[in-house]
């Protein structure tokens, strides 16, 4: 099971001698000064020797002192301890105490922040829950800010996250399955779903894929769903990510499977449909008319951000006849004296814009402000005044880039699609645009997320199928909606 103990069977269980055990652990945790071993005895009875073992900073020292050491030290002096079970049942004050002699288990628990209690001449140790490390408090996630509705977000602690989720869904049908992933990181993952509405096939498939994972370390959910997703060669994500318990809860209510991962505040939801990129929790927290309008606006924004530069380019360089006269003259005027061809101007500006965004997202907020001024005002307006770029181009790039900010979950996909459309439009004009767009749609409609069509019901002509896709139907209408067809 664990590399550390492979090949040395003698080491896999505790020994009766305390000295030997001490040496065992010293060997396991060699070069690790955070391992604390403390020996103690009952106050007036030196016959029994005890040893506690824990990792510094992973435990709550007060719990160890008050609930383990103190009750034992103050034991009656003529008490007779026949085995360690007596301590487990009658002395130690802790909600969770296990006895074990398996070294692998014990080591894992110590690594997780538990404390091992050993008694002389006993080959069993007690593992006592003393976890006490610092975790971040519950905060609102930066990426999924909402004006209405709950603000709390997941933290890095799996336990807290499960609690947050449970508080959204107080039902016995909410199930959790624990898995451990990563040979070195030993990260706990938790598959969660509502048992009464889950598609058993998908659940089995997810279980099977997670069990098959062979990876050294897991530090983010991305490494998991990259390993278990279908369509590894697509630019689109086949699993959704969220940092908000209310969003995860709503996905579970729709019959999806969630995967929570210890040490990251992100949860995965599967299957994931294309339309989910356009849905926000706020759609459901506001009136359904405004929800629908905002969703249509986001879909339009997606089209705009991927197509606008390509369409502008093909109209201006290939199909000038289509542009209304006054507009053509205005573009004509702004292009005067610009030394670069339109395509160079366009790609150059996009690269600069992306650099600004990337630089802005990695800088502290006080520099970020200055960056905005330098980027937008100084670079933008001076470039236009110096006739290095045309003013219409700034508008095109501006509209396209700002529309992209509406869909943060598809940031990189938008970038790639935009470049693809731009490339084919440059070479073939409007035909290139049409062909590239068709290729994109064919690709999208051929994708599957865990057996469910990625574009499920998006091409349907029946209002019933579209009640929560392009439109956010009223609650009484979208209740009991189906996840999507698996055909």
């Amino acid at each position, binding site marked *: 099971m664990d590399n550390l103990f492979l090949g040395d069977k003698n080491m896999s269980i505790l020994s009766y001698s305390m000295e030997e055990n001490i040496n065992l652990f010293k060997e396991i945790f060699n070069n690790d000064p955070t391992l604390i071993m403390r020996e103690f005895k009952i106050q007036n009875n030196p016959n029994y020797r005890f040893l506690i073992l824990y990792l510094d900073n992973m435990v709550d020292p007060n719990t160890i002192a008050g609930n383990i050491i103190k009750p034992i030290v103050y034991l009656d002096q003529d008490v007779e301890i026949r085995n360690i079970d007596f301590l487990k049942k009658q002395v130690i004050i802790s909600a969770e105490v296990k006895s074990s002699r398996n070294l692998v288990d014990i080591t894992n628990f110590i690594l997780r922040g538990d404390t091992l209690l050993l008694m002389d001449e006993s080959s069993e140790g007690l593992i006592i829950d003393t976890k006490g490390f610092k975790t971040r408090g519950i905060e609102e996630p930066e990426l999924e800010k909402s004006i209405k509705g709950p603000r709390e977000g997941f933290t890095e602690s799996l336990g807290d996250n499960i609690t947050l989720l449970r508080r959204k869904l107080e039902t016995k049908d909410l199930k959790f399955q624990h898995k451990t992933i990563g040979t070195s990181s030993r990260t706990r993952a938790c598959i969660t779903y509502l048992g009464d509405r889950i598609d058993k096939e998908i659940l089995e498939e997810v279980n099977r894929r997670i069990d098959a994972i062979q990876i050294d370390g897991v530090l983010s959910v991305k490494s998991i769903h990259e390993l278990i997703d279908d369509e590894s060669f697509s630019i689109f994500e086949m699993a959704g990510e969220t940092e908000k318990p209310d969003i995860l809860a709503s996905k579970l209510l729709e019959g999806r499977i969630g995967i929570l991962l210890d040490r990251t505040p992100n949860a995965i939801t599967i299957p994931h449909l294309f339309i989910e990129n356009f849905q926000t929790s706020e759609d459901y927290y506001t009136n359904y008319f405004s929800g629908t309008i905002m969703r249509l606006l986001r879909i339009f924004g997606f089209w705009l951000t991927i197509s606008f530069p390509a369409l502008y380019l093909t109209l201006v360089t290939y199909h*000038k006849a289509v542009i209304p006269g006054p507009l*053509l003259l*205005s573009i*004509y005027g702004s292009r*005067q004296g610009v030394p670069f061809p339109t395509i160079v101007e366009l790609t150059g500006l996009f690269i600069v814009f992306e650099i600004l965004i990337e630089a802005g997202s990695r800088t502290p907020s006080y520099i970020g402000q200055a960056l905005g001024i330098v980027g937008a005002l100084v670079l933008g307006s001076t470039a236009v005044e110096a006739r290095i770029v045309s003013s219409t181009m700034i508008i095109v790039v501006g509209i396209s880039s700002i529309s992209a900010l509406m869909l943060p979950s598809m940031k990189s996909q938008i970038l790639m699609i935009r470049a693809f459309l731009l490339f084919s439009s*440059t070479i073939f004009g409007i035909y290139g645009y049409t062909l590239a767009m068709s290729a994109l749609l064919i690709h999208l409609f051929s994708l599957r997320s865990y057996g469910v069509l990625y574009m499920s019901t998006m091409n349907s002509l029946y209002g019933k199928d579209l009640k929560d896709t392009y439109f956010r139907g009223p609650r009484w209408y979208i209740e009991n909606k189906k996840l999507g067809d698996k055909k």
Partner: protein
Amino acid sequence: MKKVSIVLILNLLLLSGCWDYSEVEDISIASTMAIDIDKDTKEYILNVEITDIEGTSTGINLIPVIIESRGKSLIDAARNMISITAKTPYWSHINIIIIGQDLAREGIAPVLDWIGRNPEARLSIKVFISKEKTAKEILSARQKFTKIRTFEHERLQDSYGILSKLPIIRASRVINQLQQVELFTVLPTVELANIEGKTTSKSIGAAHFKEAKLVGYLDPLDTMKYLFIQDEIEGGVVIIPGNDDERVSLNIYKSKTKIKFEFKGERLYVDLNVKPTVDIAEINGEFDYTSMAGIEMLKEKADLYMKNELETFIKDVQEDIGNDIFAFGNKLKKAHPDIWKSIEGDWNEVFREVEVRVNCDIKIKGSRNTTKPIKTK
């Protein structure tokens, strides 16, 4: 195999891509074109208004520049223009073509042939005939409100419907008409006008053609009557003489003209049913035409007035012009191809003898914001 297909796909991109790519600033955008002919050398004189741009501190200024070039053919003249502009003129944004009188008398067919063949030029170009000696005069005249002529005319197209004293005809229609036998094209005219001491252009009236050659002009009122007969009225005002020397102006909302042919005893009768819907737009007088009796009287007068006006106009055309500018022949051909076949050969004689019976049925909808006329006593 894979390598071969990659090479083939690359060739597809490299060989077929980009052939039409050109930057905006490498073209000169033409907006209006005036075509004349030099009677002595038989050379075409092409005047094109090209928009130049001047950058200012607050934005850009559009400056129209008129460039003249000559050539044995129109395409020759157009190509010769490159020697002046250095950039290729771009024809797609041309909205109006003005044809000079001299050229119109010689024949407009070559102009339309060139436009029809030019892949850049649109077939929705409006064709105007200059009433002045040359078309260049019109082009050089200053515009009243906009610098670029095309912009003004783009806007005027909608307004011409309200004026209804000018036929608006697209190049595609002219090309179509010229190819049909016994069809006499009618095109709008444009002339110079003097406003506050400055010369500008004025579009009103029409010119009629025989076999693509200019024959004569129709004055604005006759043009309106022509539009009535053609069922192309979109608006306009009809002034009806009322009691004594009072006048009532009727504003036309819409109008429908139906044409019927009757062949009785070797004679062709044309029945025109004109049904305009109007309201009372102005009363020059004090009689209350808005009362029940007044409206009835007004309708009677208006029906009769319009019937007489239209019948007189048609008679005048039959006698003076003698060409079927109303395209009765074409309509007869569609409605009664058998009759048309028997008289096709001498249609011109038949047209002069046709008896046209106009029947007018005006519908007066209302009297706009007020009812009774203002009484000064």
